[in-house]
């Protein structure tokens, strides 16, 4: 991304989305509340003994993020489609890709916020040693969300414009997220239990590979998905 115009457009879209969301906060409130609720429900479903174990709680945290997050991606695009802003944005001679990057970044910020809440709530309800897990946990967290949001935003750009969007997005997205889910859960579980086997770095490397591969692929594929 060498042309200055492109980065300006990215920032503009990012700013617009964040400001729009911040003003009403309906999406965030709904997603955050739902996430907290799911964490609580998992506590009931699995039982307090099981969820305080590091491996299970890691799985719960990430599945909660997936369920809560998948709701936001379609909404992010629907906003544009509703007021015809998408067509207007595409008509500009600027690069369509900057729209995608801007949207991804906005969704990343959004989900980082939701995710932080999930960790806090799960940390409290499940008694997770979050602080002892160290800064690597933050790294895992960010990498996992970036990968999730990249693919989620991309697939939602298509699903949100079709009839069965609520079903279609998870159907298309979740199989693609399996490696990310495995890596994020394994790394999180390892870090929450002290990483005695030293597995976390290997999973972090997988997360990085996953993020890079799909960031590049979606970046170049996006223009084929948005043109009218």
């Amino acid at each position: 991304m060498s042309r200055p115009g492109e980065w300006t457009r990215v920032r503009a879209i990012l700013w617009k989305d964040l400001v729009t969301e911040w003003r009403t906060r309906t999406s965030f409130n709904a997603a955050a509340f739902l996430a907290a609720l799911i964490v609580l429900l998992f506590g009931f479903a699995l039982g307090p003994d099981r969820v305080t174990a590091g491996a299970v709680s890691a799985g719960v945290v990430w599945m909660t993020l997936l369920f809560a997050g998948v709701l936001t991606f379609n909404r992010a695009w629907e906003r544009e489609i509703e007021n015809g802003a998408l067509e207007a944005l595409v008509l500009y001679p600027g690069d369509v890709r900057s729209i995608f990057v801007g949207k991804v970044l906005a969704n990343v910020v959004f989900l980082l916020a939701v995710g932080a809440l999930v960790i806090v709530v799960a940390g409290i309800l499940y008694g997770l040693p979050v602080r002892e897990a160290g800064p690597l946990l933050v790294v895992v967290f960010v990498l996992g969300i970036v990968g999730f949001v990249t693919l989620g935003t991309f697939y939602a750009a298509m699903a949100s414009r079709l009839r069965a969007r609520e079903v279609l997005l998870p159907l298309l997205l979740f199989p693609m997220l399996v490696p990310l889910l495995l890596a994020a859960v394994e790394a999180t579980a390892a870090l929450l239990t002290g990483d005695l086997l030293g597995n976390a770095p290997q999973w972090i490397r997988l997360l990085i590979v996953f993020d890079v591969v799909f960031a590049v692929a979606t970046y170049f594929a996006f223009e084929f998905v948005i043109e009218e």
Partner: protein
Amino acid sequence: MEAQRSTGGTATVLPRWILGFGAFAILFFMASQVTAFTISPAERDMGNLQKILYVHVPAAWISMVSYFLVFVASIGYLWRGRERLDLFAASAAEAGVVLTGLTLALGSIWGRSTWGTWWEWDPRLTSTAVLFLVFVGYLSLRGFIEDDVRRARWSAAIGILGFLNVIIVYYSVQWWRGIHQTQSSPETLSPMYTLGLRMNAFAFLFLMILFVSVRYHTAVLERGAEAREEEEALAGAAHV
């Protein structure tokens, strides 16, 4: 980049080579199955159960080949815009899904017969399940899109992304299982076994080529009929 329509020059008769090749593929398949079944001796540990691998493993291999065809055709379509590449990709995806579904079912039978369980979270079976879902999603998406150009572009995008995930899924599941459980997948390497396996691999390959070719030609016809409907609808609207 306008996608070229494929309305012109569509014959309703299958090209001669497909008929001949089809007969060959079917005969070769039957021969391979019989050969592998009869010449392979009862293996040390598995007894005769290893014969299941003569269908399970080729199905897995050739489903991967099908998805690779989807990958190449999808890239080709996004690059060139030739609609027939999209139709070919979709045909290959359909064959791939059939073969992957078969792989999973056979893998389940294999697991039940050797280990006693209908499912094992071993790397290969698990990755196959994930890929099955990815390309079922590919075919589902196509069903929801009516505009042919959008259908082609979006399918190509997710076909490429889906195939890129093949390797990543496989290695991630392999590491995952490596941590939790060391499970040896028994593989006999006696020459008789390899011969039977290779023959059947080719047999499945030829059948896949036959399926994809027939499906492709059908898709071209369907697309031609659909295009004509669209033109007719537009012409009708213009007259009114």
